[in-house]
């Protein structure tokens, strides 16, 4: 897999989550959770359903407000920022459920990812100023590179809704990559994919880390994929952190085994 040339060389900051607590109307979704995503690593966040993984993602991307605690990306505190400011700092995210407009072409959807890197406003776009056209052309070229990187270059002109589910998920990943993120939040990127698409997505994620040096925070239920890809793992259960460490250590942690088996026997 050939990676696209890396974005302008900026250093990748660490993500530090400290004592993060989120409460909704008395329900504690996250309880003093902490972990660190080291620069350029794949960090997996796992746990049974309802463990608080999606809540955590929503706080990291500014969709939910934290009740207490801090989230720092390098020097920036994220908990007080609105979503678009967090995106501006280089945090890209894909959603668990598809968030791709079905009728727009894949190319236009990916161009949306370039929003924070482009400047064309209403006047320039409306008057079709040359500067707008140049910017558009430059970024479309980059979008095509990224599409090729994830293997969607043949699908660029098609409406996103016409693609098979797995390819739509890949298109979302590509859209997040189009933001040239420093940190990528992936919420169940391979859910609903065929085995073949899973392999492709896994190699894209590995490629993102290895050739672009981007940090990845990954929520995923496919444990095989997590163990193969992740450099470190944090396990949540009922909003609490129950384990944290290298994949091999976490796998054998008795608390983790209990959380998963407990859930299965209860189901």
């Amino acid at each position, binding site marked *: 897999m050939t990676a696209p040339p890396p974005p302008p060389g900026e250093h990748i900051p660490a993500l530090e989550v400290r004592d993060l607590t989120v409460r909704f109307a008395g329900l504690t979704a996250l309880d003093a959770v902490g972990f660190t995503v080291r620069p350029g690593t794949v960090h997996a966040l796992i746990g049974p359903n309802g463990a608080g993984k999606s809540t955590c993602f929503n706080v990291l991307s*500014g969709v939910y407000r934290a009740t207490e605690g801090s989230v720092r990306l390098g020097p920036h505190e994220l908990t007080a920022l609105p979503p678009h400011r967090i995106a501006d700092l280089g945090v890209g995210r894909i959603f668990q459920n598809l968030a791709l407009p079905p*009728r727009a072409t894949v190319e236009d959807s990916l161009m949306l990812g370039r929003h924070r890197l482009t400047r064309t406003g209403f006047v320039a776009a409306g008057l079709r100023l040359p500067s707008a056209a140049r910017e558009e052309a430059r970024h479309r070229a980059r979008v095509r590179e990224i599409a090729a990187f994830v293997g969607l270059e043949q699908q660029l002109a098609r409406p996103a809704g016409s693609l098979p589910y797995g390819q739509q998920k890949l298109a979302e990943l590509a859209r997040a990559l189009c933001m040239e993120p420093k940190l990528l939040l992936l919420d169940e990127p391979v859910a609903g994919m065929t085995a073949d698409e899973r392999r492709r997505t896994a190699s894209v994620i590995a490629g993102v880390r290895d050739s672009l040096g981007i940090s990845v925070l990954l929520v995923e239920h496919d444990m095989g994929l997590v163990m193969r890809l992740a450099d470190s793992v944090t396990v949540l259960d009922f909003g609490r952190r129950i384990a944290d460490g290298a994949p091999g250590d976490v796998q054998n942690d008795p608390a983790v085994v209990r959380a998963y088996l407990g859930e299965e026997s209860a189901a």
Partner: protein
Amino acid sequence: MSEILTRSGLRVGSPAVYGGAAACLVLLVLPFYLDRFWLQAGLFAMAAALGAIGINLLTGATGQLSMGHAFFLAVGAYGYCAFAGDGADGLAGLGLPGWLAAVLAVALSGLAGGVFSPIAGRLRGAYLGIATLALIFIGQHVLFNAHDLTGGFNGRAVPPLSLFGLTFDDTELLVAQVPFGAVEKLWYLGLALLLGGVLFARGVLRGRPGRAMNAIRDHRIAAGVMGIPVARYRAAVFVLSSMYAGLAGVLLALVFQRTVPEYFGMALSLEYLAMIVIGGLGSVAGAVAGGVFVSLLPQLLNRYSDALPLVSAPGTGGIAPGEAARYLYGAAVVAVVLFLPGGLARLAARRPGKPGSGKSPKTPMHTPNTPTTTEPSGEAR
């Protein structure tokens, strides 16, 4: 340019391009052949199309409902009168040159939209629709009460526009043996404004702002996470939409030659929403088609009321043409959403060439070929 054309599905030499060119040609020669009533109806249609483009940017492309469009049309119309008026009629007027007054009136509409932006930016969808009801009532209140500025119930006369030494009034100008009065001259102004309005809106929709607007409509939260400042964009689109409405208001005022407050009531706002649903939400061609349809319908019915069953002149017991038109477009709104999502624009886009790709409809402006009478279709409820 060729890339833009290709992407929009138009190709040099394709039937659509020839069709469009032919339509433009027809539009340009119409003043030589049509009488005053038809031209006036056509001008109403152009103004409606401009206003509809504005609200389609807001409601169709960004998913933000507005019931306040009539308010901004009023700001444009009355703003023009106040900037251009010379005070001779006892009403406030700055006596500015007509072209400057028109530009300032559009800017004033944008400013009025901007003043409302703390609400326009933070409320979404139908919530904003209810909040903007306030604008209608504020507008009506001011129009009826601020006599010195608006002339109150009787409204105020609209000073003619002058541009490059040409005055758009009824002093006759002979062009190829055809006398050109106000409507003939305004016809070309209207065409130019509409063409500019269409091109600008298309540029916005196909470029970076348009992608952001659609993203906000389709998935507000994802849009924020992708780095789009949602509130700022909503407010900006509201301002742009208000400016289109202001421009439509200026053109309407010039055609009417008198602005009256009751025209800018709630019914007018509803008409604009009907236009964009019938024409096609989110598309510029749809806004134009819907604007032409809804504004010409009552005039057509009026003209041909003798020949139509059920419809008869007001006061004779049957259904008045204005009412018949409202039945028709009310039903059209319901029916279009039921049977023709995407509106007239989608229908036209489906006919020639490839199906799908509803985002790049290629209907040329519908030729208003059988308009009549001078009566405006909106009235306050």
